[in-house]
Every structure is written in structure tokens, then in C-alpha cells.
């Protein structure tokens, strides 16, 4: 590998693709869409070099379907898209959750709804990334705030998807995807990610959908003596149909959701600053976190006890971390480039604590630190 433990100027999308290569992703299927294209472009060049497979499919439905197929054969697989494409992913996202296929799906968010603004950033797919497909399920969603994190969180997404046998979504945005920054690249052979747990019993004792203590079943590669059936219908532990058995389907749905929600302490990751004595905490993610941190630093300079909390994992929701803040601070402000989405679970988690939760949600241009500072001042005058 040419990038051995060095600092390089890179674009966010390029860093994401390199992170995937470093994490052992060896299959990529995609369909062109701005502002995610560079990820596919880099993968098309890099994967054949490292013995991996790249395919541009006929649409976004087909590309996630292909990634699912590849993952079933044992490959670490990835797909990248944006806005309109992310909507088309929802069918196969639910399917991947149902049949428990580890893979990574990148969404470089742009302005919606519909075709919206292809080259402008947004953060309006936060709820879709958690609840966009029909039925009950849970995914893991990560939110990078720098080019370095486009690399690091792609690696982490691969790791988490493999550990929990679930699709992991990297919910980036146009700013982070197209920004150029210095990135410290590790030697790729030092990048360690999990690989799905494979069965350690003889084939006749293999139960493809029996969870372990954490609720995660072992996974056999397609093409081995472990014959099994990845079943998109409600199924029992041996993957046979259970389409009219509520007991079995309830147990399945609970396990699919709980293997993520009940293990959230292993998944959740937040960064906090100045939280010990903060009266007003700004909770932000993705590109907005950059301006939010700037605003908090400026508030501190002005003598305001402001703090900063940044979830790197949006889903599962960092409930304990938000509760801890709401137990001490007077206010939590949630700036986000949408009409107010992540503020809702924040408000729910903060409920019962001391802090009042304020939304600073709006579409449009990227937040400036002045805009967020102004909101801090406003909130300070009322709490």
C-alpha cells in the first residue's frame, strides 16, 4: 500500500474510500450521484488493484442488492449514494437488516426533498437513516465531522457492521465529503476490523438465526457446507418461513432491534468539551459541529459557560450521554441543517432533567459560528 502511516492532503470522499480499502472492503457496487461520486471513482480504481470487485449497477436498488449478495459470500461490501439514491436504498436496507447482512452504506447528504440541490449540503436524512425503511429494525449510523473522520468512521462502520451483522450507515454531508484536509493515514496492515463470527459447530448443528448473548447470530459464507437460507420473510432460528407465527416473528423483530439498542454502550461514541460546568450545551454533528465548536469557544471567551457535545454515532441514540448533560446544564441547543430532526430524540432524552432543549434547525447555507453564538446569547437571556 502506498499510504504508509503518513499525512496526506485528501478530500473527504477520497478518505472514505481509502478507509474502506484499509478496513478490508473488497466489494463496491454503486450508481453515480452527486455529491458522492468520488467515492465510487476511487473504488473503481483501487479495488481491482487489491483483488476486489467494483461494479456500477443499473440503479441504486440494484447496487445495494449487489452489495448484499457479495456480503453473503463473505466479502466486506460497501455502497455509496446521496439523497434521491438514499431513498431508493430503503427497500434493500430493510432487507439487509432482516437477513442480517453486514455492509456499509455511505450517504453524502445533499439538499432535498426529491432532486433538491445536488451540490449543496444538508443534514435532513437523519430520521430517514434510522426509520426510512418499513417495519421495525435498527441500524447503526455514524456522522463524520472532518476528513480524518471520513477515514476513521468508515473503518469503524465496517467494524461495527461485522460485529453486529447489520448494515452501518456513514451519514456524511456535502461539506465533509468535498472538503480537503490533512489526514493521518495509518499503515493499512495495522488497521484492524472485526469479521463476522462464523459458525464453530458442524453444519447440522448450525442455526443461522439463533442469536448469541448479544443477539447476533453466527454467519456462514454462501458456498460452504453450511447450507442456509437468507430469508426476507419472517423466519425462525433455522430460517424457515414463519409468516403466520406471531410468537416467532415477534422474537425475531425484538432481536433485530435489541441487538443494536441493548448493546448501545459498545456502539455509541460522543465527544464533549467544557461539559463540567456548562450552563448551555450545544449538541451538534456532521459539518455543523465545526461551527458549533467555534461558537462555544467564542462564548467561553466572552465569559459564558457554554459546552459542546458531539455524537459521532447518531443511532443508536446516545441516551445516557444526553441525560447526563440535561441533568446538569440549563439548556441544550441543537443546530442542524434541517427543519429540526435530531432535536426530537434529544428532547425526549433530556426530559426529566434540568435542561430545556432549543432547536436551531434550518435548511440552507452552512452554519457560521456567529449564527450559533447568537442563539447561545438568546438562550442565555431566557434560561
Amino acid at each position: 500500500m502506498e499510504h504508509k502511516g503518513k499525512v496526506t492532503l485528501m478530500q473527504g470522499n477520497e478518505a472514505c474510500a481509502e478507509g474502506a480499502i484499509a478496513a478490508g472492503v473488497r466489494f463496491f457496487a454503486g450508481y453515480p450521484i452527486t455529491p458522492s461520486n468520488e467515492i465510487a471513482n476511487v473504488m473503481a480504481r483501487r479495488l481491482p488493484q487489491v483483488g476486489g470487485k467494483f461494479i456500477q449497477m443499473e440503479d441504486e436498488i440494484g447496487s445495494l442488492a449487489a452489495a448484499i449478495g457479495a456480503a453473503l459470500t463473505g466479502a466486506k461490501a460497501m455502497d455509496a449514494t446521496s439523497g434521491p439514491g438514499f431513498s431508493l436504498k430503503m427497500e434493500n436496507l430493510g432487507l439487509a437488516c432482516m437477513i442480517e447482512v453486514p455492509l456499509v452504506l455511505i450517504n453524502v447528504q445533499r439538499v432535498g426533498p426529491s432532486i433538491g440541490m445536488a451540490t449543496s449540503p444538508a443534514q435532513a436524512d437523519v430520521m430517514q437513516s434510522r426509520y426510512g425503511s418499513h417495519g421495525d429494525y435498527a441500524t447503526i449510523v455514524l456522522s463524520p465531522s472532518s476528513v480524518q473522520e471520513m477515514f476513521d468512521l468508515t473503518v469503524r462502520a465496517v467494524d461495527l457492521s461485522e460485529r453486529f451483522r447489520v448494515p452501518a450507515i456513514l451519514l456524511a454531508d456535502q461539506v465533509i465529503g468535498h472538503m480537503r484536509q490533512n489526514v493521518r493515514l495509518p499503515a493499512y496492515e495495522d488497521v484492524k476490523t472485526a469479521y463476522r463470527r462464523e459458525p464453530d459447530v458442524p453444519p447440522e448443528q448450525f442455526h443461522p438465526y439463533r442469536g448469541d448473548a448479544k443477539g447476533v447470530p453466527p454467519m456462514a459464507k454462501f458456498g460452504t457446507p453450511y447450507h442456509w437460507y437468507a430469508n426476507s420473510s419472517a423466519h425462525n432460528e433455522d430460517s424457515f418461513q414463519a409468516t403466520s407465527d406471531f410468537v416467532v416473528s415477534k422474537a425475531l423483530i425484538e432481536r433485530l432491534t435489541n441487538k443494536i439498542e441493548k448493546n448501545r454502550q459498545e456502539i455509541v461514541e460522543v465527544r464533549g468539551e467544557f461539559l463540567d460546568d456548562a450552563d448551555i450545551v450545544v449538541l451538534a454533528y456532521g459539518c455543523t459541529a465545526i461551527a458549533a465548536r467555534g461558537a462555544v469557544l467564542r462564548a467561553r471567551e466572552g465569559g459564558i459557560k457554554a459546552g459542546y457535545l458531539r455524537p459521532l454515532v447518531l443511532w443508536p441514540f446516545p441516551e445516557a450521554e444526553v441525560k447526563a448533560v440535561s441533568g446538569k446544564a440549563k439548556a441544550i441547543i441543537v443546530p442542524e441543517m434541517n427543519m429540526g430532526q435530531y432535536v426530537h430524540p434529544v428532547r425526549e432524552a433530556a426530559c426529566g432533567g434540568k435542561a430545556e432543549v432549543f432547536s436551531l434547525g434550518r435548511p440552507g447555507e452552512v452554519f457560521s459560528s456567529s449564527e450559533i453564538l447568537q442563539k447561545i446569547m438568546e438562550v442565555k437571556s431566557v434560561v
Partner: protein
Amino acid sequence: MSKNASSSLLVDKYFYTHQFPTMWCPGCGNGTVAMATVRGIDRLGLDIDKVIHVAGIGCSSVAHWYTTFTALQSAHGRALPSATGIKLANPELTVVVTMGDGDCIAIGGNHLIHACRRNIDLTAVVYNNFNYGMTGGQVGPTTPLESLTSTTLYGNIEPPVDICKVAEAAGATYVARGAIYYIKELIDLIEKGVRHKGFSLIEVMTPCPTVFGKRNALGSAAHMWKAQKEFTIPVKKARDLTPDQLKGKWPRGVLVDKDLPEFTEEYAKLMARAQKGRAGK
């Protein structure tokens, strides 16, 4: 197993009998297509650990509920792109895809065109029963003109599509049509399709007596099976007929069989080029 292994041996080897009885209606042709597919595969003497079955959604796409092959039941219409991912990621695997006519060429139509165009080594067995069986007999893209279905109560006014012609035009390198009444021929067609390197499509005419048959007064299941003698003819005979004489008759047999570069083999060459270019720098 031998060319004509006994049915009970085949059932023991390839079916989860504890999942019987099947969900198919009495007189439905689907079980026969499934058995023909298993026989076609069995004749090739493949390592069955390496045979993967991918299905869409529909009455046709349930054979994998009963067979012992490792299988993926994908979403409605999405069997081919998932099969593409499986085959590209591991070209050693033999991938057989089953779809209904609606699954294949309505909701999955775009994927069909592109799988054919890529000439990726998959075998698609398409069960054509001229309607949407599973959802209660709605009109589909292969429903004949004027037919009655639950959504064409006054007769179908949309001309049907010929799946085999679409596959051929899109670049499939093996295209065949079979009918369950001609079971031996059908097994041969499927065997050839699985053996063929490149994208193979076998359309199988199979009656749906319960909904399509009943609504269109096509008679008993037995009658519908026998009617295949009237509305299908061997490809060779069809060649001597004028378009007028051919009206209402479906040619049966191998329609296309050519040898062209296969996608995963071309990908292997591309990988070698990419790696050579790199070493050379």
C-alpha cells in the same frame, strides 16, 4: 446422480421434506418447474455446496422454501442484482435464479435487461403463468390481450411482452423456452442453461389454474396442462411457419445459444491489468 435418478432419491437429496406440503395449489405447474430445475442441476454433478439459489417474491419464487440449496430470498424484482453480487464476489459459485413473470419483467425488468447485457454467468428460470398468482391474479406484463384478471375486469388492453425476445435483444447468450407438459425437454433446457457460460434465461410456461385459469374459463388443471400442446410448438417447426400461422403459438426449445465474453471472466482480466499497471509504475 445418474441422468435419470429416481424421484425419491432426488427428493431425499434436495428437499426438506419436513417443510411439505408445499404452498402451491393442486394442479399448479410450479412444483414441476422446481423439480425440473433440481433435475437439471443434479445432472451436472456439481458440488451442491457451491450451488446458490436466489429468488424473488411470488408463487414461483418459493421453491427455495423446500430445497436444500443455500438460498437468498430477496425483495420482489431484486433477485438478479443480488445474484450479480454473489457471482461477481465469488465466480466459483453456480447461481440459479427463479422469478415469476411479474417479478422478472415488470418490477425487475430493468435488472433483467442489464443482467443480460453484462452476460454474467447466471441462470434465470422464469415461471410464466400469465398473471400475478400470489397477490390473487392481477394483470401482468405477459397477460394475453383481452384476458380477464382481477385488475382487468373488462379485458386486458395492454399487449403482452415476449420475455425471450427482450432477453435476446438485451444480450443474453442463452435463451430458451420450455413448457411443463414437455418435462424431459424442460430438464434438458435447464441443464444446458446452467452449463452455459454467460447469462442464460429459460422461460417456462406453467399454468395457474386457481386464479388465471378459473377467471378465464380455461378448464381443469389437467386441461390447462394439455393445452400447452396446442399453444407451443418446437422451435424447428416454428421456423417453417409464416407469421400468420405462428399467431398464438409459442416456439419451444433453444432460441439463442452463443459464445461471448462472460462478465466475471472479463473482470478477472481487468483485475490483472490493473495490478500489472501498478507493478509497472
